[in-house]
């Protein structure tokens, strides 16, 4: 789950909604693709299987037509042999009569050969010119068996010399030169001279059932297209597909096409071509049938081949039927296109649905988001409609509760804050008024006390008087100091702190006047100021407000005097680097506990303790110093070795003169 969220993070989709839509799409794409692939595969296989089944049936039909032809020949011969005229003719040895009568029968029934033999197998009469007779046919298997009173029918190979005896036209009809094709199995021969014949033989019997002779006849298959065209017409009803015949049939003599309606490139019957090597091996060599797609002459067909056997059961040829594969391929392609089309349609539909569904899901979230942005920007007026009872609806309701709570809290806070601001302003005004009013009389007091103290107004006569004046002066100084801090605060707090920056020498402008002011205090506490790195310090210049900078030095040095060890040292120093100038005021004394180092800059911060309480202070000096330093873009902080010293440091950005 978390993996997935991370995974989403890498996608270039900003909104929840696009993520949802994309998810829908992904799911539909994956599902659609899978079902399309599986579906087309399945449909494709089914189509092929159906086609093969059909072609097997077609082959059965073809055999029926083929055998029907054979039976017809047998029937003709049978009926003819039983005619009295024929029987008497044979008994009387009337060759002329037989020849005339039988020739009429041969022509009437469309036979190529019709020959009558005597009981020894000697030819009495033939029915085709040149009407050769007298030769022996008893070696022929069919004739031999007919003379033994059998009625036999089969397909037989007739050698050229035998054809010649039956009629020279038959030799020409059978003669075929091979047309070489790349897939055919090579053979030493280059032509076929013998013929393949549907042949029947029947005995001629007398009334007592004695064999008088025999009658044989048949139809030469070479170049005779009657059977194959009948197969085509009956089985395929002569249908055309894109100008091509969908069904084809062929009779092979051995591997040679002798009767076919498969066409070659020129549109002629492809006789003379031979069967492909695979079929040759399977059907002729191994005597099995073949059902598969095969490349026949120049197109792919779904084909069935079966061997044709002679009377002895030897394979002498092949009967073939084939269906053009193209219609099935087209069907398959159409199915695939349909699948893809449906998948695509589904995709479009899903996109639409996803758009509306995700909108209904994300709209409340969008509302929440906008309202949240409003709150982030301080606008508490937005509440969101609660549209549903689901998680988002609950969230919206909780959100509205939160908004109301926040709003009322904010209103309370606002009222309180206004009150506080008023109070603070009143306080500052009051402080400002009091301190300002105090300032003047204090100045007068201080002036007179100084004069009393140094005897300008005449000597003080008793040591008690002197002591009283000393104490008064010390207290007045402390009071003035406090007043000054409050006046500084007043300026800082009320936002009136103007910074009038100028490029000034820090030592002369910031430090020297302060040291002069503090001279008396330093003397009073017998403290020694040590300037460190004085030469560089005197050269240091920066962009600063001289008045404010003096307040910083004054407060830091004032603190050092106040909290430092009596009779101790105060180090005031300077360092610099490429970016900033650093100043520090370090005094000997108790120092500051580490956990208080940051607190000393807080407003009204005072360190607790007996010693600290006795010293008067406002807790404003360091706060004021910090505000000023930060307004100048610098930093201020304290360091201390507890029990030994305290060090206050601040920086000013180096700046560029004249900029």
């Amino acid at each position, binding site marked *: 789950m978390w993996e997935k969220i991370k995974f989403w993070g890498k996608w270039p989709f900003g909104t929840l909604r696009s993520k949802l839509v994309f998810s829908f799409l992904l799911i539909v794409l994956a599902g659609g693709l899978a079902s399309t692939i599986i579906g087309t595969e399945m449909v494709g296989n089914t189509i092929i299987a159906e086609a093969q089944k059909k072609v097997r049936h077609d082959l059965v039909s073809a055999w029926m037509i083929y055998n029907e032809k054979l039976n017809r020949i047998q029937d003709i011969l049978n009926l003819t042999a039983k005619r009295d005229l024929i029987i008497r003719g044979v008994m009387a040895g009337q060759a002329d009569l037989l020849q005339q009568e039988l020739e009429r029968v041969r022509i009437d029934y469309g036979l190529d050969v019709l020959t009558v033999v005597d009981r020894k197998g000697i030819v009495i009469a033939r029915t085709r010119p040149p009407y050769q007779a007298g030769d022996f046919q008893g070696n022929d298997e069919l004739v031999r068996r007919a003379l033994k009173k059998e009625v036999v029918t089969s397909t037989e190979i007739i050698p050229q010399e035998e054809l010649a005896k039956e009629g020279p036209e038959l030799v020409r009809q059978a003669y075929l030169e091979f047309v070489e094709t790349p897939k055919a199995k090579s053979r030493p021969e280059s032509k076929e001279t013998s013929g393949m014949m549907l042949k029947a033989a029947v005995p001629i019997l007398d009334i007592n059932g004695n064999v008088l002779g025999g009658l044989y006849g048949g139809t030469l298959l070479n170049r005779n297209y009657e059977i194959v065209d009948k197969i085509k017409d009956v089985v395929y009803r002569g249908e055309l597909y894109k100008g091509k015949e969908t069904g084809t049939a062929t009779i092979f003599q051995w591997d040679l096409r002798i009767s076919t309606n498969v066409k070659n490139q020129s549109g002629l019957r492809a006789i003379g071509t031979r069967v492909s090597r695979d079929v040759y091996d399977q059907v002729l060599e191994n005597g099995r049938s073949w059902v598969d797609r095969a490349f026949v002459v120049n197109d792919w067909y779904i084909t069935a081949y079966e061997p044709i056997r002679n009377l002895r059961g030897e394979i002498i040829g092949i009967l073939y039927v084939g269906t053009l594969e193209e219609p099935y391929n087209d069907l398959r392609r159409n199915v695939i296109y349909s699948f893809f089309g449906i998948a695509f349609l589904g995709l479009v539909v899903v996109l639409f649905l996803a758009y509306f569904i995700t909108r209904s899901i994300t709209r409340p979230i969008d509302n929440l988001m906008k309202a949240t942005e409003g709150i982030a920007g301080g606008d508490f007026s937005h509440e969101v409609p609660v549209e549903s009872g689901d998680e988002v609806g609950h969230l919206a309701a909780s959100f509205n509760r939160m908004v109301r709570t926040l709003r009322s809290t904010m209103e309370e806070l606002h009222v309180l804050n206004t009150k506080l601001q008023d109070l603070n302003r009143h306080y500052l005004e009051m402080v400002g008024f009091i301190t300002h009013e105090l300032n003047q009389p204090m100045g*007068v007091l201080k002036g007179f006390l100084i004069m009393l103290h140094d005897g300008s107004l005449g000597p003080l006569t008793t040591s008690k008087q002197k002591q009283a004046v000393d104490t008064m002066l010390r207290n007045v100084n402390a009071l003035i100091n406090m007043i000054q801090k409050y006046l*500084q605060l007043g300026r800082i707090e009320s936002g009136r702190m103007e910074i009038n920056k100028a490029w000034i020498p820090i030592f002369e402008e910031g430090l020297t006047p302060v040291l002069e002011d503090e001279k008396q205090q330093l003397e009073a506490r017998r403290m020694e100021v040590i300037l460190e790195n004085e030469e560089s310090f005197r050269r240091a210049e920066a962009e600063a407000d001289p*008045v404010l900078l003096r307040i910083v030095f004054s407060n830091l040095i004032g603190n050092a005097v106040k909290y430092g060890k009596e009779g101790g040292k105060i180090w005031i120093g300077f360092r610099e680097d490429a970016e900033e100038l650093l100043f520090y005021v370090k005094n000997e004394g108790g120092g500051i506990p580490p956990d208080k180092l940051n607190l000393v800059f807080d407003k009204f911060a005072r360190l607790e303790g007996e010693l600290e309480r006795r010293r008067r202070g406002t807790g404003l000096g360091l706060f004021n110093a910090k505000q000023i330093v930060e307004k100048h873009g610098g930093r201020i902080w304290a360091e201390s070795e507890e029990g030994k010293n305290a060090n206050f440091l601040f920086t000013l950005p180096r700046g560029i003169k004249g900029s």
Partner: protein
Amino acid sequence: MEGRRKVLVIDDEPDLVEMIRMALERMFEVTTAFNGKEGVTKAREERPDVIVLDVMMPEKDGFTACRELKGDPSTASIPIIILTGVAEHFGRTKYHRMGGLEIEAEDFIPKPVDPNELLRRVTALLKKD
């Protein structure tokens, strides 16, 4: 000795004027004025050697008074020491600015005024002549 040098103290606070008078009386003749207007008039009439001027006053404040005095040829040459407020606590060298206003004067002394320091400054200014 051609008589004591004369210092004009202009301030609206009588006690402070009294304190400054006592501080300066030991060495100078002191005359006083209690607002800017009166101060300018007195300066023109009496031609003091030094003027001590407070900036925060009713009836013509210190800035205006100072500018008038420096703009009048009869008083322009009289050196002026300005008393500055605490919050201002401002420059004593070249940066004579108060609340963003430039002011031309010979010296500045921050309040509260140390009488000894004031005496020293007045003496120093007169020695320059």
